[in-house]
């Protein structure tokens, strides 16, 4: 690892996905970092993962000091994360220092004592396997073991300074009673106050939302604020770095087809190759059709297309597409299309996000469509959804592929959706699909509201849908208020008069 002279404190890459981004390179190397969280906040997983990633990525041996759970329990529980601790123990890459309680043995306390044995055992185990990482889980549990907590307190001080001398990188977990309050119970944070990470598991809008926050790293930088994370089987903690993702995408002038010739024309020659497109409209007005044309237009040019669908089943999608003259199955056979359908409620937002990212990473599409983003709105809390949108958008941008996202408006006649509110500033192109009531008849209108870096048509044009797909026709004339959902028909004279007002 190269020493950066500008950084006073060297960092150790933990290997925990996403975490090293928000920690700006990992946790301070050779120091102790406190990880504090309430019950069920995934502290033990984090601690175990700290060792597991060290072993998997660098072959760095680690010591796991357990005050609470037995090694048997930890071995078993972590197997579901895909970490075979027993195997690592055989290879001397992992060693337990088991200080879990033995309820079957009576313990009597009389007079002064110290925790010298604990320190000796840690040092012994560390020297045996050449440990580079130590995880201690969890500090608070040791207080409940002894009546004389003032001794425990001073002994933990001694432990902390001894660990510092050892020069290994240590993660110590500890409990807290509230999500927002003092850092930890028993005031243990004072022992390792240099570096503190908080794990939260907050109930928000009746939904659990996990977040991680680097509270402080003494002498080292980190991202501030809470970042969502999830715990995945076969992977463990996955942090979603959101804004920490560097937006280094190059702006491309290359255009790709929207799959609809007229829409391409409205956009001044198609979508930009690395742009995000938001298509917003009421239910049934043709968003899925737009998605299908977008996908088919890509596949017809030999592009790899990924369709992530959250509103309809695969069968429905394929049937609908056939109704518009689009053969999804053909594209799939050519290996150019992958359709992933998921029921929004089947997972949490973070899990959906990670799955979407994984699909993109694995399939490596040239274009991706999500239909609809709004369907996922109900899975998470408001904050969680906002973060989800931003994270997904940054991820797609990062891959420099066009992404078409659809959003369903709350009312039939239009109006803004939450998706729009969060999405509009990060999307490059916004297309509105609207029902237009005119003279007792329902018609449909499409307009390109925004197109970053390009000229585009400003008209609201009428379109119709038949077995060949979407047909964009002439602009609506003499109608105002389409976008607000309250169209009004203007008389010819009034339209002329208003037109004249803005003439040069």
């Amino acid at each position, binding site marked *: 690892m190269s020493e950066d002279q500008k950084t006073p404190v060297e960092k150790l890459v933990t290997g925990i996905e996403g975490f090293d981004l928000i920690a700006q390179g990992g946790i301070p190397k050779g120091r102790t970092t406190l990880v504090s969280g309430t019950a069920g906040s995934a502290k033990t997983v984090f601690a175990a993962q700290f060792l597991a990633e060290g072993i998997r990525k660098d072959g760095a041996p680690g010591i796991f000091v357990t005050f609470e759970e037995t090694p048997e329990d930890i071995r078993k529980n972590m197997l579901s994360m895909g970490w075979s601790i027993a195997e690592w123990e055989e290879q001397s890459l992992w060693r337990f*220092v*088991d*200080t879990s309680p*033995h309820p*079957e*043995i*009576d*313990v*009597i*306390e*009389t*007079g*002064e*004592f*110290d*925790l*010298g*044995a*604990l*320190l*000796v*055992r840690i*040092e*012994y*185990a560390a020297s045996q396997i050449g440990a580079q990482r130590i995880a201690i889980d969890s500090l608070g549990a*040791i207080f409940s*073991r*002894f009546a004389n907590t003032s001794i425990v307190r001073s002994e933990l001080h001694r432990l902390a300074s001894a660990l510092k001398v050892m020069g290994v990188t240590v993660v110590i977990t500890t409990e807290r009673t509230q999500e927002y309050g003092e850092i930890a119970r028993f005031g243990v944070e004072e022992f390792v106050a240099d570096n503190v990470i908080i794990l939260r598991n907050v109930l928000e809008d009746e939904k659990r939302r996990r977040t991680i926050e680097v509270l402080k790293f003494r002498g080292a930088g980190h991202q501030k604020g809470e970042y969502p994370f999830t715990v995945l089987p076969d992977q463990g903690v996955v942090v979603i770095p959101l804004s920490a993702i560097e937006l280094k995408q190059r702006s491309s002038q290359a255009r790709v087809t929207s799959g609809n010739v007229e829409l391409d024309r409205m956009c001044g020659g198609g979508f930009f190759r690395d742009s995000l497109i938001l298509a917003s409209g009421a239910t049934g007005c043709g968003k899925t059709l737009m998605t299908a044309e977008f996908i088919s237009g890509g596949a017809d040019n030999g592009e790899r297309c990924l369709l992530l669908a959250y509103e309809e089943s695969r069968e429905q999608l394929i049937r609908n597409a056939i109704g518009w003259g689009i053969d999804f199955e053909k594209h799939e056979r050519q290996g150019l299309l992958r359709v992933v359908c998921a029921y929004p409620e089947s997972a949490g937002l973070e899990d959906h996000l990670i799955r979407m990212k994984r699909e993109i990473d694995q399939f490596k599409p040239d274009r991706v469509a999500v239909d609809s983003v709004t369907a996922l709105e109900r899975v998470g809390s408001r904050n969680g959804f906002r973060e989800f949108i931003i994270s997904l958008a940054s991820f797609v941008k990062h891959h420099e592929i066009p992404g078409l996202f659809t959003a369903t408006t709350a009312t039939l006649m239009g109006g803004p959706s939450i998706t729009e509110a969060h999405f509009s500033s990060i999307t490059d192109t916004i297309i509105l699909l609207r029902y237009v009531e005119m003279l007792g008849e329902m018609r449909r209108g499409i307009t390109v509201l925004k197109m970053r870096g390009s000229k585009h048509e400003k008209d609201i044009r009428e379109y119709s849908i038949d077995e060949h797909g979407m047909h964009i026709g002439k602009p609506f004339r003499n109608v105002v208020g389409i976008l607000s959902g309250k169209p009004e028909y203007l008389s010819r004279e009034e339209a002329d008069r208003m037109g004249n007002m803005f003439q040069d």
Partner: protein
Amino acid sequence: MNEYQKYLLKLYITGHTARSERAIKNLRNICAEDLGGKYEMRVIDILERPQLAEDEKILATPTLIKALPPPLRRIIGDLSDTEKVLVGLDLLPIDEK
């Protein structure tokens, strides 16, 4: 264990500190006064034999383990409270503590 009750006492210490010596002295006194000759006392310095601390999962020192007779008992501290130690060695009924 149908022969006469023999006590096997293991005292774990971390180095020969003042506290360790105090524990050893206290234990010797108790053994001499209350156990007669029916005991075997071992002092284990875990600085010298860390594996033994690992095997017994010792956390604090001094720790006195009453290995025999059953039940297994652990007494933590410098053993300065003789009554408590006697309770731990089942030489005093528990309700007297």
